């Protein structure tokens, strides 16, 4: 009897989890499946389970029609290229600049440290989105509107990443550094030769989260760019969704192109993302 009860319980548990997984995944499944279908098929299958399946009855050469059309109508290649370039620059600069600042805040004694730390905490809770127009005014007065530095520079110094790096550095044992200091190594050498190699996990975490953030950014590029050639993918997707005639299958193709790389990055580096999130939570 208890065996049977346990069996029922386990079954209910799994069924529940699979239903929940479906609730979280079905929009994405539908998006991917329908990016491979002609528009008429997409709408005719809405009230059938086939809505979530790939169009197996079509020859595979027709699957990519929506992709071909959307690439013809919109400059998606340019957008993808721009987004990859912006993301890479931001990641490299972000990791370098913030890890250095965090190292000083974690390991050095100096006047002003407490003030800087409290300012960082303060900035963490200010809703910066309200400052986007004043930010525009500042970037404008630096003559950086419609330039790539204007897009990227505000995304590099990041108090949240300094905070994460600092947590990590504070937990690193100090012996190696002390030994190197006694041997006469300079602080910069210690940082690049000892600390950075020890910090690969947190660097991976921050690099991934920063890349995803940059890839997904929308508000700031819309505001700062007037030149369509510089727009990142997210802005082009919004244009694609607002340019008549709007074909749903083409929209889904565009969204899939934007989403698949990010989901792959996430699936590959799951461990680092989870670690990063856990660090922020436990604090």
């Amino acid at each position, binding site marked *: 009897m208890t065996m049977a009860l346990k069996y029922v319980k386990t079954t209910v548990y799994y069924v529940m989890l699979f239903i929940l997984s479906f609730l979280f995944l079905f929009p*994405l499944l539908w998006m991917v499946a329908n990016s491979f279908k002609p528009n008429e098929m997409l*709408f005719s299958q809405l009230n059938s389970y086939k809505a979530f399946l790939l169009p197996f009855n079509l020859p595979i050469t027709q699957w990519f029609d929506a992709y071909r059309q959307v690439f013809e109508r919109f400059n998606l290649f340019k957008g993808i290229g721009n987004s990859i370039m912006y993301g890479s620059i931001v990641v490299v600069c972000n990791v370098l600049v913030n890890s*250095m600042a965090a190292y000083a*805040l974690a390991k050095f004694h100096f006047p002003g440290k407490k003030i800087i730390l409290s300012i960082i905490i303060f900035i963490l809770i200010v*809703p910066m*989105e309200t400052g986007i127009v004043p930010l525009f005014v500042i*970037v404008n007065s630096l003559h950086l509107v419609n330039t790539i530095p204007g897009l990227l520079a505000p995304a590099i110094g990041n108090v949240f990443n300094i905070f994460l790096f600092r947590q990590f550095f504070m937990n690193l044992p100090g012996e190696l550094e002390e030994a190197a200091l006694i041997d006469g190594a300079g602080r910069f050498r210690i940082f690049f030769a000892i600390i950075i190699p020890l910090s690969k996990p947190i660097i991976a975490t921050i690099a991934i989260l920063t890349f995803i953030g940059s890839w997904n950014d929308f508000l700031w590029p819309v505001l700062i760019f007037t030149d369509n050639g510089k727009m990142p993918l997210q802005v082009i997707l919004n244009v694609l969704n607002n340019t008549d005639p709007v074909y749903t299958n083409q*929209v889904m193709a565009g969204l899939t192109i934007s989403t698949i790389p990010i989901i792959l990055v996430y699936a590959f580096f799951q461990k680092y993302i989870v670690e990063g999130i*856990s660090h922020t939570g436990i604090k």
Partner: protein
Amino acid sequence: MGKNNQQIPVQKYKLRETLMAYAFMAPALILIIIFVIGPIIASISFAFTDYYLLKPKEISFSGLENFKYIAEDKMVLTAFANTFKFVVMVLPLQIGTALGLALLVNRENKFNTFFKISFFSPVVVSLVVMSILWMVLLNPGSGLLNAMLQAFGIPKQPFLSSPKQAMPTIVFVSAWQGAGYQMMIFLAGLKTIPASLYEAASIDGATAWTKFRYITLPSLQNTTVFILITTLIGAFKLIIQPMVMTSGGPKNSTLTIVYYIYQTGVRYRNVGYAASIGLLFTAVVMVIILFQRKLVRED
């Protein structure tokens, strides 16, 4: 003499180390001062001026004029009300979902990685992609969701095109997107609870509910406070979903405060007025956060 001798060992900071520290921090500090602290200070000062984006030279101090105008601006009231509505609905839904999912996934099971990836996937999807996708799914005439509802015999819903349903729909979509993130933080918190506590409780014959109420919940207190505050801050900043999905409508029912600030500053170029709303809003958010922390601490 004696005084000086004492001071030397007490002196905490070495010049070399101080210089090094600032050299290490310089790039980040300079960028943060220009692009983070700069806008904060600019917001505060613009709030008391009539700064207009196209006429930067005609800026003049206007005292509390902007704030007087806020008091008469019905759109500000609407935007505040909408934002609070969103926060009050999304907070329990999203955090409750996240905790539930975390508890379910925290058990050993064969498909754990699959479940976690499913719940977390929407988090990495961009807000623009998610907003466009749900717009299509929620289309009242030809959307998947109404087709699914009809399959269960439920009549078609207007969703985003009705002033009544638009905000709850955005709440639902936002919770769908965000819950996986808080689930991960809850999971990290759950992992720190020693299994021995549960074993001891089981020996004493505690029910699942008692264990949850007297072991799990109290152990998650710090995690929950952290999640409450970060989710609250995130929820107050709502802009992209209404911007992409509804443009603030229908009938301004999804116009949020950050969106209104954006419109005032960007579309109407009234930077001074936008900054004054932003300042008021920031003050309100900070008071709520401090109040919330105090409440939770006293608990």
